[in-house]
Each structure stands twice: as C-alpha cells, then as structure tokens.
C-alpha cells in the first residue's frame, strides 16, 4: 500500500463511520426538496418538452448533493484535523503534496458519488429520469465532485475557524449551487440573469450532467465539458500549490 492509499482509505473510513450524518442525512434533505418543489411546481413549470418538472428536478438535486457533499468532505476533514491538532500525524509523514491531493479529493469524490447515488435510488420511487448518455453523467459527476472536493481542500487549508468555513460554504458554495440551475432551466430567466448564469462554472456542471439524462441542455455538453475541465485544472493547480508550500499548515 503506498502512502496515498492509506490516507485515501482513512478519509473514506472517516466519513463512513458517521455515514448516518454524512450520507443518509443529505439523501433525506434532497428527497425533501424533491417532494416539496415537485409538489408545488409540477403543474406550473415546463422546462423541456416531454420532460416533467419532477423528472427535470431529479438530476439537478443529484448533482447538487454530489457537489455539496464533496465540498463538505474535504473541508470538514481538514478543518477538524487542524483544530483538533491531529493534522500533525499527516504532516510528519513523507506523503507528498500530490498524495495529499489525491487522497483528500479522491475521498470527497467517493462521498459525493455515494450521496448522489443514494438520492437517485430514493427518488426512483417517485420518478426515474431516462439515462440517455451515461458516460456524460459519469464524466460530469466525477469532474463536479472533483472541483468541489478541491475547493473544500482549499477552504479547509485557508480557514482557521469553523466560523470562516461556514462563511465560505454559505456565501460562496451555496449561492453558486442554488443559482446554477438546479431548480430551473436558465432559459426561463431574464436575459441579464442568463448572462450572469453563464459566468457560473456550477451552471455548466449541472447543465452537462442533465444532458446525460435527457439529451437536452441549455448549452452544448462539449462546451460544458471544456469549461468544467478547465475549472478543475485551475482549482487543482491552486490546491497543489498551496499543499506544496504548506499554506497555513507548516509554519
């Protein structure tokens, strides 16, 4: 077992030991969203032809759960370890910055996908979206979880208190997720807000992900794939740099 595998496995076990909180709870939350929004909006909102609102909503909720939980995993693990002081056990090891990156982001992807799969399974009792292009679904789920796991890593390194972490989550991650088109198609927005939405990388993750289900999207999935990949490359570059210089973890 190489070092990164040990850290990766430890990070998986860390969230799995409290899976009621880290997997079951977010699945329940997503189902509540679906029940309420689906019930209220089913007959009023028509997004695509031949796609009911509830069916449209499911991939959005799945992706939102993937993103939020990927972020929550790496960010909470690192800030807790920093505040508890047990990050020292990893700092003392020969693990390289690449190993840290792969382990923290990899485990965040696993948690994101686990929750996403859970949401998909539970909502399948109500409605099952079609799976037109499963590879697109997988590609965007992996990239989206990777981006948010990486952002969580960056936020965990940056934040010194739980307070700052909550601010990062509530003022950056939450608005960008909610305003990315989880609950609506951006074509229903006024032109100005459509333009603003196009600046939000989260929009492309969800739009591309939804394309995999319905074969319909607001922008071409190739454009989304390019932009999402570029976003991942940028945040990964930043995270690797911060890990290499020991930003806020090595004095």
């Amino acid at each position: 077992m190489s070092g990164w595998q040990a850290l990766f496995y430890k990070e998986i076990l860390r969230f799995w030991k409290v899976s009621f909180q880290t997997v079951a709870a977010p699945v329940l939350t997503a189902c509540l969203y679906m029940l309420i929004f689906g019930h209220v909006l089913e007959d009023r909102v028509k997004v695509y032809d031949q796609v009911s609102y509830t069916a449209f909503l499911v991939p959005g909720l799945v992706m939102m759960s993937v993103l939020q939980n990927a972020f929550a995993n790496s960010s909470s693990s690192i800030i807790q370890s920093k505040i508890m002081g047990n990050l020292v056990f990893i700092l003392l090891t020969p693990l390289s910055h690449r190993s840290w990156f792969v382990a923290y982001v990899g485990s965040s992807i696993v948690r994101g996908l686990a929750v996403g799969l859970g949401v998909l399974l539970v909502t399948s009792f109500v409605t099952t979206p079609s799976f037109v292009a499963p590879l697109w679904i997988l590609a965007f789920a992996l990239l989206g979880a990777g981006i948010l796991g990486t952002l969580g890593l960056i936020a965990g390194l940056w934040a010194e208190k739980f307070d700052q972490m909550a601010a990062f989550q509530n003022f950056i991650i939450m608005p960008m997720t909610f305003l990315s088109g989880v609950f609506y198609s951006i074509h229903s927005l006024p032109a100005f807000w459509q333009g603003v939405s196009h600046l939000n990388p989260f929009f492309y993750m969800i739009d591309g992900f939804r394309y995999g289900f319905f074969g319909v999207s607001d922008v071409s999935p190739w454009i989304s794939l390019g932009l999402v990949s570029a976003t991942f490359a940028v945040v990964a570059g930043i995270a690797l740099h911060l890990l290499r210089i020991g930003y806020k973890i090595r004095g």
Partner: protein
Amino acid sequence: MPAISFQSVSKTYQTARGPFQALDGVRFDIEDGEFFGLLGPNGAGKTTLISILAGLSRATSGRIEVHGHDVQTDAAQARRQLGVVPQELVFDPFFNVREALRFQSGYFGVRHNDDWIDELLASLGLADKANSNMRQLSGGMKRRVLVAQALVHKPPVIVLDEPTAGVDVELRQTLWQFIAKLNRQGHTVLLTTHYLEEAEALCGRLAMLKQGRVVALDRTSDLLKAASSNVLRFKLDAELPPVLARQARITGRIVQFPANDALEIERYLAAVREAGLHAEDVEIRKADLEDVFLDVMGQDTPAAGVTP
C-alpha cells in the same frame, strides 16, 4: 555522519509587536546512537527547533540534516528517519488505537505491520486498549499511543518533545524502559524535558537553550563536574537577610546554597546563626543537573565553548 545536524538554525516570527527571534544560530550535531537531551526554560525555543526538524515549520536561515537528508529539500527521506512524539496530546477521535497505528504505518508506506504494532502495544502497556476508541482513553493512555504512532515505521531517530509532561510515575517508568531499550538497540534519541532528574539519568549529552541560543553543550557528566560540587540545604521558618537570600535558592521553607568546600559551608551556616536564625534538617548533597541548569540559566552571557 551525524544522526542530526543543526547548522546555524535561526527562526524569526512576525508578531503583532514586531519580529521575535525564537532561535538564533543554533548549531550542534547529535551522533548516531546517542541519547541526547535538549533542555531550557519555557520559551527557550526547544519546540520551535523540533518543529523545524520535523518539517512542521521552516527555519528563517540555516538548515537541519537527518542522516544527511535536508529536512526541507529532501523532506521525504528525512521524515522516514524520524519518529516524532509531539508535545500536544492530540488524537483522531474517529478511530481506535489499532486503526490509528495502521494508518500511521500506511502513510509511511509500511504494509502488513501488525506484528510490530502488537509489539509496540505490548511494550507500552496498551495491548488491552487496541480496540478502544481514542476518545475513551485517559490522558496517559493517549500519550502512550502518541509514542506508538511515532515508532510505527521503525525510525532510526526518535524525537520526544516533553513526553512525560503531566504523566504519572508508572507511565514514565514504562516509557523510559522502552526508550532506553530502543537506544541500546542503536536508535538515536533526542529528548526535551522539564524533568532534569530524567535528563540526568538518561542523557549522555545535553544542550541547554536560553532565548534561542545554545548556552551549554557537553556530556552530562562533564556538566555536572563543572558545577559547584556541593549544595548546602536546610529548612528555615523565618526569612533570610537580603544579602544571603541573593546567593540562595529558596523553595518555600527549603534554602539551598551552592558551595565548593567545607569552609564555604561553614561560612553560610555562621551567617545564618549570626542573623539569629535557626537552620533545621541541615544536609550537604552533591550538585545535580538542576543546580547546573539554574547556574547556566542565571548567567547573562552565553557560556564559552558552545560551538562544537
């Protein structure tokens, strides 16, 4: 090649009140197989020096090598050589003792390490705690796990940063027996401690730090020889006259005077009698490391011959 080589290590922290120099040109070598003690009062820079050695912090200037591996430029190799027991009592609340040790082992790329983990658990009196969650352990037990975590990859150089702070007698005994055994087997040990008795008993060589500088560096036996050879010790109910008090070390009722010979001892006792005081439980003992330590720390200028 020395086990650890400190080469003019300096560290300056930027604080709200301006720069603070925690270490100032610290240089000395620790040879392979030594049991070395690093002493100094709180804030002398011991933990800062160990943090830089362990790669938790960076020197402002100078460098440290572990078996020839620079702790910054060749960090991975240097860290494989080191087993560091941190001063803070930290633990990961998600895991039990065996899991914590298996993971720590894994981070160093050591697989199938359960035989050695079992040996560590047995040697440190943790065998019956292997499956207990870290949260359920007492402070002393957590300290033992910290030691086991530091040793899980069989490092040739063991660094203990005040491992016995706030620890009961039994654990101290267990711990020192185990560390002394590892030292006999060839492991190099670097220890910081506030218990000078322990340092005197265990360490072959000592360095004393004061305000970030090495103010003494010698074999323990030579340091003891260099100090005043005797200490006059007695108990007193009243207060000493100021002239005498300045030369004495006073701990509650206990008064101690460093003295080189019988004449000096007589002089002190006479002075006490002349002041109209009555000394009880008078005894004369050999100077110990605490006397050396207080002597060195009391001097204003660094002792001569600090550079190796």
